[in-house]
């Protein structure tokens, strides 16, 4: 996705990703992703499993597995170096400080042998954001209160908590150093719907209170529409469409977005749901040209060539035969 003249010049973005490509051996898993998140902005990244959402997030965080390589550019506000290719020593100063994350499985972020209060205090002391242990512990109490956990959680070990409580601890940890950007990758996918509601609300309140930016990854369109202002749609390792939630979800232009919305519409009064033919291909087996063309009812010969990006980076799509733009 190369935008030659972006009309909305965004100078003060918190996160700027340009031409991100992720490969493993001979396979390309993510292609040429451009993505920006402005200060205080809540941006969603959606797509079905295998579309490259998590690899995109892990590239930004510098947490890709060893055999996986990222190229392109990732810049974060307040950090004077490129994040792609930065060594672990530099990344560990950024991660947990300016850039924080919440993953689907909370135990990946928690130390099973350490009390919750100590873990949160430690996170602040490592980055020197509190003057000493006493101040860090006091801050930990307040952080737990903000995620609506009782004070005795401080002395608990992770295994003594439920899945939803652990995820709230992870959120408290992620917000402890007032990051400029919070990345959440399917943070509520493993939770029950009533617990999800609370965790989503705490995430939104947490970033709003700090004027932090949010990059929120999910396969759930309704969740992203509730949490985010802007959304990017990924399929086959590419961003195929982006725009404000209200636009993309009511007037999709890319045929994949259109199909995904129709297939997820359970409110329909028709007994049969609209489907997208076929299956999501496995990694490395997406077609050349438009990645969606093997499943697209509108595909023609020209779709064998990669569709150019139409529009600006924040609002646009890559499709040769887009759905009609509806005027209102």
């Amino acid at each position: 996705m190369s935008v030659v003249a972006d009309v909305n010049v965004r100078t003060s973005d918190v996160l700027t990703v340009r031409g991100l490509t992720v490969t493993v051996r001979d396979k390309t898993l993510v292609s040429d992703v451009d993505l920006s998140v402005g200060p205080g902005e809540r941006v969603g990244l959606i797509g079905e499993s295998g579309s490259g959402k998590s690899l995109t997030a892990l590239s930004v965080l510098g947490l890709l597995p060893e055999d996986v390589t990222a190229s392109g550019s990732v810049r974060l506000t307040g950090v004077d170096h490129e994040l792609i290719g930065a060594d672990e020593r530099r990344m560990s100063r950024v991660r947990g400080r300016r850039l924080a994350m919440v993953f689907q499985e909370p135990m990946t972020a928690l130390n099973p042998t350490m009390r919750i209060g100590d873990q949160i205090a430690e996170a602040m002391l490592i980055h020197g954001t509190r003057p000493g242990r006493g101040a860090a512990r006091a801050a930990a109490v307040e952080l737990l209160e903000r995620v609506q956990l009782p004070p005795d959680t401080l002395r608990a070990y992770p295994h003594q908590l439920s899945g939803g409580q652990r995820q709230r601890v992870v959120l408290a940890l992620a917000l402890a150093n007032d990051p400029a950007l919070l990345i959440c990758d399917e943070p509520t996918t493993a939770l029950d719907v009533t617990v999800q509601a609370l965790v989503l609300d705490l995430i939104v309140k947490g970033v709003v209170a700090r004027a932090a930016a949010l990059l929120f990854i999910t396969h759930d369109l309704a969740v992203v529409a509730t949490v985010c202002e802007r959304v990017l749609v990924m399929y086959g390792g590419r961003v195929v469409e982006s725009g404000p939630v209200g636009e993309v979800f009511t007037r999709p232009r890319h045929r994949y977005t259109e199909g995904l919305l129709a297939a997820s519409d359970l409110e329909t009064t028709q007994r049969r749901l609209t489907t997208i033919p076929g299956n999501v291909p496995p990694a490395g087996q997406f077609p050349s040209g438009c990645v969606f063309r093997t499943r697209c009812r509108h595909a023609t010969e020209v779709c064998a060539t990669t569709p150019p990006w139409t529009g600006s980076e924040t609002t646009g799509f890559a499709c040769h035969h887009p759905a009609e733009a509806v005027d209102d």
Partner: protein
Amino acid sequence: MTDTPAAIQVVDVVRTYTRPRTSLLRPAPVVRALRGVNLEVKEGERFGIVGESGCGKSTLLRIIAALDHATSGHVVVEGTDITRLPERRLRFLRENLQLVFQDPMSSLDPRMRVRDIIAEPLVVQGHPASGARVRELLEAVGLSADAGDRYPHQFSGGQRQRISIARALAPRPRILIADEPVSALDVSVRAQVLNLISDLVDELNLTLVFVSHDLSVVKHVCDRVAVMNAGQIVETGFTGDVYAAPQHPYTQRLVSAIPTLHRALAGATTTDLLAAKGEPG
């Protein structure tokens, strides 16, 4: 509907488990998985059971399928009380009632070819499993005939769920029980599998019991729904009514917590998900 015979009746079913003792001084803890469940599913009905993890949905299904036994209470399937029948007298149930689970990978033997997986329930029951019947079943679930020669791992999640549906249909059951059959699937594939289940239920005149944590899916598939919480059914009704005007406080919380595109685009925020209302606007 009142004259239609009941396919399944569940009467005052209680199921308690005893956990291993953790202390010599205290009695072994008792987990009350089902605390007096009553429900009736009519023949030909599409009945949903919705609730969050651990509420007892799967325990209830296992008892209905006679894979587990009630501590007290009764289960009657097609007029026969199965509660205390020995396995040798459950043959009618093993044929007439079939199950489909959430994770097809763990319920399909990875070393067996698809055609043998599909024929297995027939073989187990001593019926001959003709190649023609297997091909017919593959076709019914939208798989090509050569799929029979392959192994489960060569298929995607959605295709594997088609395979487990074909296997469930092999003995020509009258009741199909699906436990979270689409919860592990991507949205575009979920729509395909929901359509398949819906079409088969219509064509084969099946009674469907569809269990899910997701009330919006249940609402699309089922006529009536029972809402479970902590081992009890707190509300039963037509799905449209339960969704539009939930009566029990738990159902109200559940309905309000479900994010929907419709509500989000109308301006609903995450805080609105937490505000239970009797009549969601």
